């Protein structure tokens, strides 16, 4: 069983953290991952920076631009992560836009992920239909779980389709927005969370976008299995550095 699937069997609300690889400085990647695990985070999304991150707001855009300036590339990231499984046991997911993966070669990319011990991928601009037709067999060959997004605008029919293609969890985008755009949840989110919970999907859901603290984490995980924090974490490390990450994580999970 894949580490992600094992983690999803634990009876707790999962906290997943997104960060941009190579940020704040190029060689921070491994330290951030190790410190997040020590701080008690359940899962990590390692962001591959991209020059044109369409679905991201200013915080992740800025960290991506900085990471690229620092010299981050797909090859550099794989090199940094080559011994990561000697020190880290929690699930690791690579998250990035499709073009850099396409240029690396999708199969070569997947093979490298398996070799390193990456458990899954989130590729916001690889639509589920294209994945199913062209790439699913490759991902499965290397034991990688591909995670798809749904939003409040996604139809029930399409959610069922995405659920049928998924084999880990579904990434529930909390509102129609780019990352880091909104904070706090209102009635619209409550209704959406309830609607999805009532669908009894085969894959558990983890909520992302708009989660920044204990309150939003709790709201998001009332029905869902876990929640993902990205922009708020990147803001934290850009002002406080990467050393004492329990300062950020503890108030959320305590």
């Amino acid at each position, binding site marked *: 069983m894949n580490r992600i699937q094992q983690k999803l069997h634990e009876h707790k609300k999962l906290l997943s953290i997104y960060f941009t690889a190579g940020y704040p400085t190029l060689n921070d990647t491994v330290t951030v991952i190790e410190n997040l695990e020590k701080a008690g985070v359940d899962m990590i999304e390692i962001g591959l920076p*991209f*020059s*044109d*991150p*369409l*679905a*991201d*707001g*200013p915080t992740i*855009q800025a960290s991506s*631009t900085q990471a*690229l300036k620092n010299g981050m*590339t*797909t*090859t550099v990231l794989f090199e940094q992560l080559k011994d990561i499984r000697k020190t880290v046991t929690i699930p690791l997911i690579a998250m990035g*836009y*499709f*073009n*850099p*993966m*396409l*240029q*690396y070669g999708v199969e070569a990319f997947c093979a490298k992920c398996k070799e390193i011990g990456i458990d899954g991928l989130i590729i*916001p*601009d*690889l*639509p*589920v239909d*294209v994945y199913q037709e062209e790439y699913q067999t490759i991902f499965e060959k290397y034991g990688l779980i591909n995670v*798809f*997004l*749904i*939003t409040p*605008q*996604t*139809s029930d029919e*399409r959610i069922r389709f995405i659920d049928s293609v998924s084999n880990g969890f579904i990434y529930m*985008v909390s509102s*129609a*927005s*780019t990352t880091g*755009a909104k904070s706090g949840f209102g009635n619209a989110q409550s209704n959406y969370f309830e609607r999805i919970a009532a669908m009894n999907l085969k894959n558990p859901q983890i909520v992302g976008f708009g989660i920044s603290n204990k309150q939003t984490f709790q709201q998001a995980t009332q029905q869902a299995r876990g929640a993902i924090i990205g922009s708020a974490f990147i803001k934290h490390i850009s002002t406080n550095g990467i050393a004492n990450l329990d300062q950020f994580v503890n108030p959320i999970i305590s």
Partner: protein
Amino acid sequence: MSYNINEKGYYGEFGGAYIPEMLYPNVEELRQNYLKVMAEPSFQEEFNQLLKDYVGRPSPLYFAKRLSKKYKTKIYLKREDLNHTGAHKVNNTIGQILMAQRLGKKRIIAETGAGQHGVATATVCALMGMECIVYMGEIDIARQAPNVARMKMLGATVIPALSGSRTLKDATNEAIRDWINNPVDTHYIIGSAIGPHPYPDMVTKFQSIISEEIKSQLKEKEGTENPDYVIACIGGGSNAAGTYYHFLENEDVGIIAVEAAGKGIHSGESAATSVLGKEGIIHGCKTLLMQTDDGQITEPYSISAGLDYPGVGPLHSHLYRTGRGEFYSATDDEAMQAGLELAKLEGIIPAIETSHALAVFNYKTFKPDDIVVISLSGRGDKDLNNYIEYFNL
């Protein structure tokens, strides 16, 4: 071999809709409706009426006598520069605003590089009384001040794109982000034959009025509907797509594209996407684009703000890959000289984008009885400062 789009939204291997799930409902709504709406008699009637009475179509097909003499062939200019707002861009914005209305949208967003598409969008929004937000790179805002002023006068809000390289590709990113944040009431009027399916096809079809008119006008003037060559400049490629459309499947008609080589194809400052680009994903479609080995999209350069896009529409990638299109690239200098030559020989000052198409004669010799149609995509008023600086006028 077909050069039209297939049912999945691809031209050969290029096209598709590589979009985040957040955009899926918007793009899917458009995909399901665009052909149906365009085929409605009431849509056709309103579209054609506006093209005639508001834009001033049909645009003339002008036999350029002195230019023809100089290059010893028969050159016709399709005068898109005489359209209202000064370029071909308005053909598409008229079509898309009517589409947006029929889809019940209340708010229009657009990206712009040189400002021509922004102006054309602001114009149709004023015409229809709709809210208009135009994203424009901070650098382009500085170098295209008159067009920014025009958009403001037309009631549009111009928002500077401050991310990345702060030019057209970043303005496009910002417009897409706006659409993600406003998925229900907003329509995104993309200005070129790029973006996720169905945009390249929809924009091409709205621009296809150019080749439709060429056929009937040429029939009248030359007794044949088909020229030997159609020629257009290419950035994203909307005027080219419209100029080629009705000739795509007739291989007796040669298709010629002229890209911007900037300071030279291999100078590091160029926008010659077909030569320098590799297959990849930009702004929702698979096409040829300029990028690093690592797949990061690079910043193109051209003296013309309308051609410095790092990608090219998927139709054109297909024409390039299959050899159906002949592709050339003209440097800044070649384009500027070609623009000056047209002014001196024919009394027409072209947009610098268009000047690239006119520079084709540096690369290709035509036969005396060839009929060559060049899309004169825009007028040069907006570029006067560039011409002044370049030629010390």
